[in-house]
């Protein structure tokens, strides 16, 4: 669990120092991230914007501890994470990061409730605790009456709300949302953005990746990535 101690209030959630990421494509080396310096404080609602190929997805993967930088240092909640092993990163993903994806990524054979409690099964949480917490999170996104529904019985907006509940279940330090409205009609998209704004209002730290400037405007701070660099 994240301890909201006085200390962590002062520490930034993310502190990136000269983060680099290269890809080798054949003979040539592509610099996806050239030297990213970034500070995201607790409670911030940040939008990462940039065109396709700008490096924002790579940055998102590094922030989400799904990918490792080739150079530089990254601190998450004050802890240096760029050199961690795969297992340690898995543990941090579980404890500190909640993901929301464009395509929801709900497991099709699990009910809404089971999808929400999924992260907890890797956390040794007891069955009754899991159930109670998953019910609570599902209710918070307004789906208390959809617990037993399978993903294909839910609308796109509802599926994304299930995914948000799943992201919140471990009370993460940060929510990383990758184009969360990209697969939704505008009305559902607005509903989702309303939830994010509400979460921000509750003091959650949110990093939103989008290419949609309309969506980005909901955020408190917009960071534009271009050619592997932060330009504003």
């Amino acid at each position, binding site marked *: 669990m994240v301890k909201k101690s006085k200390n962590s209030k002062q520490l930034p959630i993310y502190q990136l120092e000269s983060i680099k990421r290269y890809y080798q494509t054949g003979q040539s080396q592509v610099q996806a991230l050239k030297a990213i310096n970034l500070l995201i404080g607790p409670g911030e609602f940040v939008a990462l914007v940039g065109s396709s190929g700008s490096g924002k997805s790579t940055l998102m993967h590094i922030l989400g501890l799904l990918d490792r930088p080739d150079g530089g240092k990254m601190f998450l909640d004050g802890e240096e994470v760029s050199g961690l092993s795969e*297992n340690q990163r898995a*543990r941090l993903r579980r404890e500190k990061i909640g993901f929301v994806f464009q395509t929801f990524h709900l497991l099709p054979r699990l009910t809404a409730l089971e999808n929400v409690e999924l992260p907890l099964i*890797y956390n040794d949480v007891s069955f009754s605790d899991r159930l109670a917490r998953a019910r609570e999170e599902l209710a918070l996104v307004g789906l208390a009456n959809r617990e037993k529904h399978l993903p294909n019985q839910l609308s796109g907006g509802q599926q994304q709300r299930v995914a948000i509940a799943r992201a919140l279940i471990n009370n993460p330090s940060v929510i990383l949302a990758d184009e969360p409205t990209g697969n939704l009609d505008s009305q559902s998209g607005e509903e989702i953005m309303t939830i994010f704004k509400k979460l921000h209002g509750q003091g959650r730290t949110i990093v939103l990746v989008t290419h949609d400037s309309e969506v980005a405007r909901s955020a408190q701070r917009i960071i534009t990535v271009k050619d592997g660099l932060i330009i504003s």
Partner: protein
Amino acid sequence: MLFNLEIFKVALRSLWANKVRSFLTMLGIIIGVAAVITLVSIGAGLKVYIADQFEALGSNLIYIYPGDLSSGFGERAMISQTRLENQHRQAIDRLDLPIGAISALVQIADQAKYKENTFNTIVFGVESAYSQVVNVDLEMGRFFTESEEERRRRVAIVGSRVVEEIFSGIDPLGKSFFLGGSAFEVVGILEEQGGGAMGSSSVDDTVIVPLKTAELIFAQEDYGAIIVKAESESDIDQIKAAIKKELLDYFDEEDFSVLDQRQILNQIDNILGMLTLALGGIAAISLLVGGIGIMNIMLVSVTERTAEIGLRKAVGAQNKDILVQFIIESVFLSIVGGSIGVIFGFLGSLLIGSFLQTTVTPWSVFLAFSISSLIGVVFGVAPARKAARLDPIEALRY
């Protein structure tokens, strides 16, 4: 923690979600395990059957065979040119040994014919004392007498199958039938013994005639064996040694064999043991194929569930959690398949047991089951590793 009940449930749920596929995958293991158990039970049953038949002959028997049988009934025995003849029979007679009874034996494959009916039988030409050497249980009639043998009478004691096949329905006692071009009178009928596993001949298929008659009719003068019944078990070793010593005057050591029942049984056991192993081994190949089937399906399953694996990793599953999930799936398939296979193996051996003698051996059940479980682990590892090593970023793009 390596074993997590939740991960176990996750694995079972995905198997359950693909019920038909899971069952078909298990089928390979089911058939493999059932085949091993059933085939081994046939081999083991044959062993028990032969031992029973052998013991039914009586006890304290010593067999003298031409050729060297000490290394099994193998090639050397088959190509032996040694002839065991009347002079050797007489040489044994001259020894002063505690022998109860003795009989030489010739063996001829021939066709028995009565009216239009024919039957391929094994003709045993034996001495009148044969009935004192081994147990000859008669259903009806009598054994032939010494004087009938001396006068080379054409009398025969026939097995129950011979009666069935050529005398169908008629009382054969006193009837004449043809054997080797001569008419023989039926004086006795052997009690039915049953068995005769997998085309092997049984006492029921035989005809017993006087030795001297057989020598005359079939022009066969060398013996298939000389059988000696010791007066008591304690005399067996002494008699064997004395006969061996005497026959060395006629043969080289490797040209004849003097064996007691136990030795013969041991050798038959060895041969059947190898046969059983071979049968089990062939069946085990299907187990291997079943294991490859599991691996194949698990690999397909990993590919299909790439997005799921990516998501699980994103929400914090470690590589070992994914590894364990997929190994549980394959182990479960093979253990459940193995268990069902054991049941079918018992049923199969029961079914075959209605016409052949079968004995389910605990070691074959244990072996088949543990091999199938092992297969689940071994063939589950490659797909599970593939799953565990998936890059979550790539996996989430699916």
